[in-house]
């Protein structure tokens, strides 16, 4: 291989590799890399998207962006969702999957879940099968601020006055986070269940012989052993926290309202693009979003790096 660069063997070898790489690489470049680069280019223009004429305006879009209150509101909302939503989802999902897989103790020599766990597994996964828009419409009915709203009428039995779940500015975002958690938990229950099923049952039996109760079994044995899976879930959920477009679009009052209390970056980009036709400005926002997501991903991978567990 050293003497000639293009021996027939080398051609065959690299040709073989290239033939496999070409198609996916082309798709990646056409549909991912090039739009991103174009967005970067558009972000430096005053394009309105509907006419081919536009001028380069340098960093004007960005200076305007950093002075935009709505933009900062959206970034703050992402920050809050990022802090709360993955944590709550993971805690609930871990709790449920522990109960479903190990919480029922021994039966016939197998560690089993609580009574009826196979039924609950289906129920928990159900929201995952629904389209996000359907979830949104469903929760519009559930969270209706009138007395007749599903949640409010239930609360009414206990004498609680109707709550304006989505119309109170300081409550609306929390409500939407709640819906995101409801929608996401099922998938992570299944993910963590798979992680727990991958642990040899003898380890749990050894722990039972060593004197572990359910509490220590969960915190000292189960959690460390599924930690890799939890990290994967964390990254998924973190990326989902930068989206939230469909749910906010369908569920919130006035698309991101009331008074921009629930708006998120994808929604603002959508609005700037297709309502105001400010393609250049929207692209600048998109570039900012890309940097936010990249920073999050890099930080997560950095912080959560840990040695692999081997059984």
């Amino acid at each position: 291989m050293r003497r000639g660069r293009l021996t027939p063997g080398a051609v065959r070898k690299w040709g073989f590799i290239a033939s496999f790489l070409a198609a996916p690489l082309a798709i990646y470049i056409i549909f991912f890399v090039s739009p991103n680069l174009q967005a970067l280019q558009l972000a430096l223009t005053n394009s309105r998207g509907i006419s081919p004429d536009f001028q380069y305006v340098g960093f004007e879009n960005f200076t305007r962006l950093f002075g935009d209150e709505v933009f900062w509101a959206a970034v703050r909302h992402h920050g809050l969702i990022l802090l709360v939503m993955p944590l709550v989802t993971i805690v609930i999902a871990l709790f449920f999957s522990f109960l479903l897989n190990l919480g029922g103790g021994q039966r016939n020599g197998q560690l089993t879940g609580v009574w009826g766990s196979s039924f609950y597994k289906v129920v928990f996964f159900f929201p995952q099968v629904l389209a996000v828009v359907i979830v949104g419409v469903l929760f519009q009915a559930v969270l209706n601020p009138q007395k007749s709203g599903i949640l409010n009428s239930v609360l009414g039995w206990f004498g609680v006055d109707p709550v304006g779940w989505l119309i109170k500015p300081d409550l609306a975002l929390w409500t939407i986070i709640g819906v995101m958690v409801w929608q996401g938990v099922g998938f992570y229950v299944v993910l963590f269940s798979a992680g727990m099923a991958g642990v040899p049952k003898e380890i749990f039996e050894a722990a039972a012989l060593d004197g572990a109760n359910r509490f220590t079994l969960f915190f000292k044995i189960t959690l460390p052993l599924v930690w890799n899976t939890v990290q994967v879930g964390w990254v998924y959920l973190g990326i989902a926290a930068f989206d939230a477009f469909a749910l906010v679009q369908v569920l919130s009052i006035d698309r991101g309202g009331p008074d921009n209390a629930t708006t998120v970056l994808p929604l603002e980009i959508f609005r700037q693009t297709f309502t105001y036709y400010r393609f250049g400005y929207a692209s600048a926002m998109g570039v900012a979003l890309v940097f936010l997501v990249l920073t999050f991903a890099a930080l997560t991978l950095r912080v959560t790096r840990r040695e692999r567990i081997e059984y």
Partner: protein
Amino acid sequence: MASIVLNNVDKIYAGGVKAVNGLNLEIKDGEFMVLVGPSGCGKSTALRMIAGLEDISGGEIVIGDRVVNHLPPKDRDIAMVFQNYALYPHMTVEENLAFGLKLRKMSKPEIAKRVNEAAKMLGLEQYLKRKPAALSGGQRQRVAMGRAIVREPQAFLMDEPLSNLDAKLRVSMRASLNQLHERLGVTTVYVTHDQVEAMTLGDRVCVLRDGILQQVDTPQNLFDKPVNLFVAGFMGSPSMNFTYAELVRDGAGAAVAFAGYKLPVPDTAFAEKAGLERYIGKRIILGIRPSDFEDAVAANGASAGWARVPVKANVTEELGSEINVLFTIDAPPVEHKDTVAAANDGDEEEAAALPLTGDKSLWTARVNARSHVRPGQNIELVVDTHNLHFFDVESGLSIGHPANVGR
């Protein structure tokens, strides 16, 4: 330390499968008891019931002076070693050893003392800070042992702890296990499917089959006085040779006739085996251990009183210190449910050799390495007629065995 007593213990799985059937067993204080049997015989289930990892469907288990039927595993004061070690992969060796002690709220200096003692005993001192993934199979196995030792329990339960090790390591670990038991003197119940492990480790060995206890005795007694065809065929390697034979008595005395051979039966056999007289003139199953054969030439001088059997060696397996001579005798193989069950769990090669022999039986003789016998050669073997085994054709029970009198 404590004794373990099983009284009529049953295990019935959903669907009605009886994994353990009316098991009665008394394991004495400080005894090393081996449960052995082919796969699916219920030996692991029995062990897991003692540990509390499986419910008991019927009967009673007593550890020390407590009935433990409804005690959870952690309150039974026992420690278990698993086949795949079941070490906690996210903890260091030290943490693995200390985990059970920490959960029992033991003081820190006491934990450190016990962990260090166990590590010293098992030669694990330099590995204390490592995680299991960075250890070899033998080292992991020793950590698993250490985790049991530090607890200082009433009894050790071991579920095929050596099966995941390679052959050489298994032999040395077997020796260390023996030493360890002598040093600690803790009651031990040990499950294995390997009859060599059973013979070498056990103070007593309990042979199980289909959830039913076959025989409990010292290894030597199991080998010399098997209670039935199954135990006879299962214990010992190569396994015992069987054939249908007729017990006759004529002017020259009693003899057993099969496949054109006639071996004299010494009078002592009738004295030892009560009821053997009644089988004279009837068909029986004859069993001869491969080790009770010897090459007539190599055994020159020592063969006085031994019966001679001329055979043709089909295959010879030279093992260095001895030679296994495989030969066919002109008699159909014994097809009793007990011999089939015992043979099925034997070496694959033995099972594969059967079709080649047609309706003849393949026998094995273990002879001295000085014999120099070659495949295809005719060889004269001698048989120690004092060690012939006789079994009932119908029941498969050993004729005249004390446990079978009246059965």
